[in-house]
């Protein structure tokens, strides 16, 4: 049996230290924003690293959650995320799997089409007109369909599919399995890690996206949560208004509200990662089965 050397123990120790330092550094913005969001506006302006609020208050959260329509916006965001991820996973997997099979006709050409689309786009105006002509304005499909089959996800997924040993698929086919069966019974279960990654990417993308909603969704009842965040975070673009009127508004502390808004929009999506993580481990077990 293999024995750990002194050398390796040193490596393990250093590794743990490095990772802990990294964790501290990456945790900081979260702590900082959380602290600010829990502070009184006047306290925000005090100096310091803001590792904990001196006098915690939920006032900013109360204000943020009190906004008209925020519950509705939360639901809309959830809706687009769930539908978006489901449609994206299904459509991308169904498109990627054929492209991972060696004999699929025009495979090279299709891949080139995908890559090209990643680099060039027609821009905002034609896209808006397309969405409008398809009658998708003010519909969740305007947010879901355009990115449902994107080159990036497709290529990543196809590459993982390709890594599945040919023999497994062939033997399944000899047993009489059709392509659909192969996809759902063999390829997808063996690819849970990449499905998890793509689902995570898609979920986070849909949760965080605001530009498309801003353009395609005009009905205020259908707006998404991130537009609330944007309203809180972006600087007043109008120089004229900013100089005097904002100063005069005075009793508005945007910083704590900003932080609370960011937290309200961020925390829900942070919660899904631990669930996604399980798939990474599961993948290892399946991997051992297939060997």
């Amino acid at each position, binding site marked *: 049996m*293999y024995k750990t*050397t002194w050398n*390796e123990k040193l490596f393990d120790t250093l*590794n743990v230290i490095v*990772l*802990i330092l*990294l964790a501290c*550094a*990456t945790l900081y*913005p*979260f702590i*900082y*924003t959380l602290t600010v969001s829990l502070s009184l506006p006047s306290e925000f302006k005090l100096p310091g690293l803001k590792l904990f609020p001196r006098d915690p208050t939920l006032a900013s959260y109360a204000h943020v959650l009190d906004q008209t329509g925020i519950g509705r916006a939360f639901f809309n965001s959830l809706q687009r995320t769930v539908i978006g991820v489901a449609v994206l996973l299904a*459509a991308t997997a169904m498109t990627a*799997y*054929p*492209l991972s*099979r060696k*004999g*699929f*006709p025009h*495979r*090279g050409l*299709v*891949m080139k089409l995908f*890559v090209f689309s*990643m*680099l*060039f*786009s*027609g*821009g905002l*105006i*034609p*896209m808006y007109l*397309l969405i409008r002509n398809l009658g998708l304005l003010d519909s969740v499909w305007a947010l879901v*369909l355009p*990115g*449902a*089959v994107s080159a*990036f996800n497709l*290529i990543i997924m196809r590459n*993982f599919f*390709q*890594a599945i040993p040919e023999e497994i698929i062939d033997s399944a086919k000899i047993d009489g399995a*059709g*392509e659909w069966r192969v996809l759902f019974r063999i390829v997808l279960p063996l690819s849970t*890690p990449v499905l998890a990654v793509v689902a995570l990417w898609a979920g986070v993308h849909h949760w*965080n996206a605001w530009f498309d909603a801003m353009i395609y969704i005009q009905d205020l009842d259908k707006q998404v949560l991130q537009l609330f965040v944007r309203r809180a975070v*972006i600087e007043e673009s109008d120089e004229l208004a900013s100089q005097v009127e904002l100063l005069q508004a005075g009793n508005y502390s945007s910083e704590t509200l900003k932080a609370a808004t*960011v937290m309200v929009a961020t925390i829900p999506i942070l919660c899904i*990662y*631990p669930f996604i*993580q399980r798939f*990474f481990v599961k*993948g*290892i077990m399946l991997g*051992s089965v*297939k*060997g």
Partner: protein
Amino acid sequence: MKSEAAVAAARPGRFRERLQTYRHNRFLIYMFLPGFLIFFIFSYVPMYGIMIAFKDYRILDGIAGSPWAGLEHFRYLFAGQGFTNALRNTVVIALLKYLFVFPAPIILALLLNEIRLSWFRRTIQTISYLPHFFSWVILGGILFTFLGREGGFNQILGYFGLPPVNWLIEPSSFYGMVVITDIWQSIGWGSIVYFAALAGIDPTLYEAAIADGASRWRRIWHITLPSLVPVITIMLLLSLGNFLQVGFDQIYNLMTPTTSDVGDILDTYVLRRLLTMDYEVGAAAGIFSSVFGLLLVIVANYLVKLYDKDQGIW
């Protein structure tokens, strides 16, 4: 259609062969078409919009009806003072990022992979991806405080007797800060795809290697890294298309008048030239970096295929 039929008639053997492949793959094609259709409609139908970069866009005439402007918008874009400077900065930052930021998530994935305590591994993983969720507007504010003269970072340096430095203001340290803060923001999130790849490695390989008495290093070098190579290759190829997009949000939020010389990138340059939204010039700028990216991807994909025929995007 007619000509296709003619071609088919001329080469009956090949045509039949092709039909055979279609037929053989028909279920795959049925599976493929719906997704492809969605892709095609939303990616290629609006593609005619590219013309706008070559047109003098009149809203009332539409894109197709507007008069052609030739390369006028490109000329306008590149004629500005400081274009070459912006291009040079962009390339320098891009190269630095490929050198330091691109490998960072891979290294993180490898380091985490060596951790055996699963709760520790999971916790670090979860924490490391947090900064991804904060916009650079927010991160910029935090960084200016933390890296300022009186900020936390200089206080830490002070314990080691080092003099305080205005890290984000000094032009000499700006690129370093851009690279470090980018790693900080993206390392955890970027490593997720590598975790997925690591999860796919057959554990029996390790068991066999351990039984053979292979050291840790040899295992990493001969088992872990090789199984990451396909993902690394594809991530590299895909990112090359955006070579000239070196992170507008980050640079824009970290730049100050003292660093705008070294920090001015193509995106900030274009923004400056578009006081009011100018679709034509914006499109021209986009096409420029897309063509650049496309060339890089084509060359890189070719090189990758030279090395291993099965890798690459197409």
